[in-house]
């Protein structure tokens, strides 16, 4: 068991960037990930839609949340890889957060700590 920190990179990205992000994560050596459909609001302006000409505002945009836990690979590398792959330059590209993880367990092997990641 090493003393390496375990960190979680949480990225909120555009759904259509997911394929590129997955490829970038694999290239940086951190292919394990969890993906969730989410909705949220940031700097992206609200969308207007209409039904029978009556307008309504959609201010929660569909996004994808990618969670990636790493131990040996620096979380900054992972975050940068995601940021590069998810970048379009328009408002609504998303955000990336890095969080400390207290511990990890691998269900199949019973390994704990960085070995489990």
């Amino acid at each position, binding site marked *: 068991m090493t003393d390496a920190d375990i960190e979680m990179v949480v990225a909120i990205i555009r759904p259509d960037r997911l394929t590129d992000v997955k490829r970038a994560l694999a290239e940086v050596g951190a*292919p394990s990930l969890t993906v969730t459909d989410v909705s949220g609001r940031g700097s992206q302006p609200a969308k207007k839609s*209409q039904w029978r000409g009556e307008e309504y505002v959609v201010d929660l945009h569909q996004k994808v949340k990618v969670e990636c836990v790493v131990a040996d690979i620096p979380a900054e590398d992972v975050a940068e890889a995601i940021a590069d792959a998810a970048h379009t330059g328009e408002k609504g590209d998303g955000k990336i957060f890095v969080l400390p993880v207290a511990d990890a367990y691998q269900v199949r092997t019973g390994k704990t700590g960085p070995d489990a990641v």
Partner: protein
Amino acid sequence: MLELLPLQTEAQAIADSINYVWVLVVCFLIFFMQPGFALLEAGQVRAKNVGNVLTKNMTDWALGVLTYFIVGAGLASIVGMLTSGASLDVMAAFSYIGAPGSTGWINWVFGAVFAMTAATIVSGAVAERMDFTAYVVFVVVLTALIYPTVQGLTWAGGLLSGPTADGTGGFIGEALGVGYLDFAGATVVHMVGGLAGLVAAKMVGPRKGRFDENGDSQPIPGHSMLLAVLGTLILAFGWYGFNVGTQATVLAVAEDGSLTFMGAALGRVVLVTTLGMGAGAVAAMAVSTAWQGKPDPLWMANGLLAGLVAVTGAVPHVTWWGGLLIGAIGGALVLPAYRWTVDTLQIDDVCGVFAVHGAAGAVGTILIPVFATSGSGTAILGDSWAFLGVDQLAMQIVGVAVIGIWTVLATGVTGLVVDATIGLRVSEEEEEAGLDAGEHGISTYPEFVGDSGPEASRRTVSADGGSGPVQTDGGVEEAASTDPVEGGESDD
């Protein structure tokens, strides 16, 4: 003379065979309007109410045919007898049940598919909040009383039908000297359905959230434009049976036994039907573009149907360009008529049945004398045009008024009785949860709304209906995917 008789009988048998097989085929086509209505209405409601609106559509047909067989068709004949110079004969009115002859039952089915078309329009107006039991009562009253009465006043020889040599025409028809023109039921079927829906929607009240505290309308988008548009096109397909099939005589038999193919009559009906729906859709597309800035598929679909409704009464009576104009007027009126229903009347007519079936039916039928074709008329654009006269125009307006007032009053009384006994509306909690769950204990889209089973949780947030579920495979390129699950494991 005696030698002619067998020939004549033979000719009659041939003509009957062809005509009645044609009538049966169009009955099946008109029946196919039922799935059209079901899809159209299902697409315009939210996912949580789809099963309920489908059940109501099936009930229209299933319970409606039983009611119309036991009561409705007979009552139509009785109303016809009572409101004209004809004498009352209850046995004759119900003869289709016990003594149908060779064609009585076919004729009954032909009448039934029209009656059920009127009945099924109502569910679109009251969708997403009317109690199912209350709706069942509406179906029974509509197919037993409201529609048959209108049929009696018009097609069954009653109040509005034209004068006859022996004075047995309808009372108003005899008085005005002309009969009411509504060929396939623009008012008899569609305006009745549209007005009944409007009144029922008024009485049951708007859906929760449809109007804000200032009375301004708030949109409640339906769950599938795809279903709504496909339903519209299926309806249009069935409509060919509705309009062209009302030209029920394909082969006519003369006194001397000679046969005449009625191609010209069939041709006018099918041409005007086609031009009417095209013009209605194009007009609605233009109006919606002018009004909203972009062509709107739902308005276009509604306009196509309104064009069809508008020409339904007129098809054999008007010039081809008259039919085109009537269809265009019907389609152009859909959007303003809907806005008037919502903004001025404050009625939440979910599928716009008043705009599509009510307003278009009334306007198209009143305009028949204005665009009429006549053998002795003026030739315009290859068709012979003539104004049918003030009497005919007056008759059209009186007819629309009589049918409209009866429908509004009868539906209103039914609504009051149901409200006082069963209650018209589901509870607020049930409306919130959806009528699929509340009225039927089902979920139309279990996976979509997160009800797929005891272990399922709500997985998606319906925010803007954007992208579908996350693609869980096929995303990572081969080079990178050594072993995605274990690949994160470190070597040390």
